[in-house]
């Protein structure tokens, strides 16, 4: 496809990039509380896009009776071994219950006790039917006034001048169209990054991963390129999941109280600790010691429990139910094998992402971040993504003012158009996008602590990884696309490579092991309190700079330098 793209220029008050959990809720908030116009640009269709596509199993972040938002902050800070932003955690936790009540109004089914109160699952969760959570949110957005949704439009670049954002540029997946969207404020809500590392199932089922393979770190990458500050990328997230199907384990662990056992039947979890990273580490260690495979001990659960598990999985990870039924190895008869996934960068579970102030504004003026793309606030999950979307939207409304679009930005847009058209030009490069993606995943796997290296690395390996990622980045400027969907693949590769570069720099800078598995540096196997602070980074003039920042202590934080 060698053709010129046609440009469509749009103006809106608020541009939301990514119509997932946080993006949809931010749009609803702006619509409900102001007269500002909102435009959501979504690479898929908001009906089922992002993390919520298959459904979720519970509200993971909720303040159950007898607990306080402060308890949640303490829990998450402890789980992250101190590297959190208490201001962000507290402001999210204070809203967990209100956004849940709102979801219930939108139609979410929540399990109730006889007295009408929500049925708790442990200390922080409540039970729901999360199968249709995304369509419920999408329906509310479709009915909201002043909200326009552009589906199947992939955004690639922010328009920034003098430290302020003025809009963003992207392209349609369906037509040969470039979108030049100008706005008074922009919210990034593109989720985290999957597909950086070689996945558990690298063959036919390569996309059977935990995190959506379509969340490719575009939001991080566009922010990095525009000079926005990022935080804590080195706190990777590795999920402990059911083998092969990569289905969640929490439903089994907390639902039927199954314990983690090794092949000998020993309950090993006690030995390694119970933080999220220690649970992954314990399983890796047991395998290294020759005690694998590891399991969730489900055999012996009652037929009712088994039936409820089959149904619960259909509501969030249907492949697990199919696996149980077609293999005949039902959970009541056979323990469920578990494994760690490849590492992801995801601010909803760990603390990686945009460095934001308490109102979720990034270091670029009028550019906000919410949900998995925003850093500092681990374990925010669905309710935290909603809360952050709401907090950002409120600040956008409060500070909104019309801006004059600088004419110099038109040149930026022309450069982006030229970049798209170069990829779309007829050419036969040596390497396809897919081949380079595979190469990137292998480099990350082998040299930057992937599955095959038990998530461990040393400095030498990281420097090899950095070098190889730079070489692949150079090669990625020659990839070609025959149509708009292939242009998307090309950008997904470029975005992932940018995220990998920053990730490696962060892993190199935290010269300690603060979290097993998530950041297991064999040259520095212990924690070192010199690193009890944030590792941040910023791209300036094409060069990545690392900044160390002291822990934020107070209830609010504002950007100063």
């Amino acid at each position, binding site marked *: 496809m060698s053709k010129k793209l046609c440009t469509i220029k749009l103006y809106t008050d608020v541009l939301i990039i990514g119509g997932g959990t946080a993006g949809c809720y931010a749009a609803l908030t702006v619509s409900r509380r102001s007269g500002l116009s909102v435009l959501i640009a979504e690479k898929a269709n908001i*009906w089922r896009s992002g993390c919520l596509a298959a459904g979720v*199993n519970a509200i993971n972040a909720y303040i159950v009776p007898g607990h306080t938002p402060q308890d949640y902050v303490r829990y998450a800070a402890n789980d992250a071994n101190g590297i959190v932003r208490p201001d962000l955690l507290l402001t999210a936790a204070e809203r967990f219950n209100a956004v849940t009540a709102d979801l219930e109004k939108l139609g979410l089914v929540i399990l109730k006790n006889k007295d009408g109160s929500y049925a708790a699952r442990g200390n922080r969760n409540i039970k729901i039917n999360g199968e249709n959570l995304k369509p419920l949110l999408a329906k509310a957005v479709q009915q909201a006034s002043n909200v326009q949704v552009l589906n199947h439009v992939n955004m690639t670049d922010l328009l920034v001048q003098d430290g302020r954002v003025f809009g963003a540029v992207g392209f349609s997946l369906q037509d040969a169209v470039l979108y030049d969207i100008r706005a008074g404020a922009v919210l990034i809500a593109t989720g985290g990054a999957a597909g950086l590392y070689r996945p558990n199932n690298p063959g036919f089922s390569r996309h059977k991963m935990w995190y959506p*393979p379509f969340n490719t770190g575009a939001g991080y990458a566009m922010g990095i390129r525009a000079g926005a500050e990022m935080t804590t990328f080195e706190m990777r997230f590795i999920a402990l999941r059911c083998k092969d199907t990569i289905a969640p384990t929490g*439903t089994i662990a907390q639902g039927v109280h199954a314990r983690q056992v090794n092949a000998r039947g020993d309950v090993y979890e006690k030995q390694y600790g119970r933080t999220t990273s220690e649970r992954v580490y314990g399983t890796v260690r047991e395998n290294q010691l020759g005690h694998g495979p590891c399991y969730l001990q489900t055999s012996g659960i009652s037929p009712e429990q088994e039936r409820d*598990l089959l149904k619960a999985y259909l509501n969030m990870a249907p492949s697990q139910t199919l696996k149980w039924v077609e293999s005949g190895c039902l959970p009541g008869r056979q323990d469920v094998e578990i494994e760690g996934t490849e590492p992801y960068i995801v601010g909803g579970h760990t603390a990686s992402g945009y460095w934001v102030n308490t109102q979720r504004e990034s270091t670029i003026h009028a550019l906000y971040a919410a949900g998995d793309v925003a850093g500092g606030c681990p374990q925010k999950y669905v309710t935290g993504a909603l809360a952050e979307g709401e907090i950002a939207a409120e600040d956008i409304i409060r500070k909104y003012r019309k801006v004059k679009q600088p004419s110099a930005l038109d040149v930026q847009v022309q450069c982006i158009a030229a970049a798209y058209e170069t990829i779309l030009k007829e050419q036969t490069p040596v390497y396809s996008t897919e081949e380079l993606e595979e190469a990137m995943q292998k480099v990350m796997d082998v040299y930057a602590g992937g599955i095959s290296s038990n998530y461990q690395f040393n400095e030498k390996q990281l420097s090899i990884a950095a070098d190889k990622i730079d070489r692949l980045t150079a090669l990625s400027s020659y990839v070609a696309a025959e149509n708009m969907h292939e242009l998307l693949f090309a950008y997904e590769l470029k975005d992932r490579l940018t995220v990998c570069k920053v990730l490696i720099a962060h892993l190199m800078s935290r010269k300690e092991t603060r979290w097993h598995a998530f950041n297991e540096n064999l040259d520095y196997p212990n924690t070192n309190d010199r690193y009890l602070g944030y590792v941040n980074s910023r791209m300036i003039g094409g060069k990545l700079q690392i900044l160390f920042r002291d822990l934020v202590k107070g209830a609010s934080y504002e950007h100063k330098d």
Partner: protein
Amino acid sequence: MSIKIDRDRCVGCQRCTVVCPGSLIEMQAGKAVMKYPRDCWGCASCVKECPAEAIAFFLGADIGGSGSTMTVSESGDVLHWKIHCWDGTVKVIDVDRKNANQY
């Protein structure tokens, strides 16, 4: 992990092409076609959306699949998940959207 679309059953409504979070399904000559089978996340959104039970979900052999497929039909709030086993038997599990997970 992926899907197969039965051309004969497909009525061309395009709903699967709209909902796929990876935009992996395309229309060709009025019928839905799975364009990128290796890129499927396995979310089953398209399977649930299809009004004609034309989309079957299966586990790749690399993740232990044994050749069974799964389709879904809907009546009111109830989703009927049908597992068409490799040995020809069909197992149906009904899930009511109005009921919360017990776990």
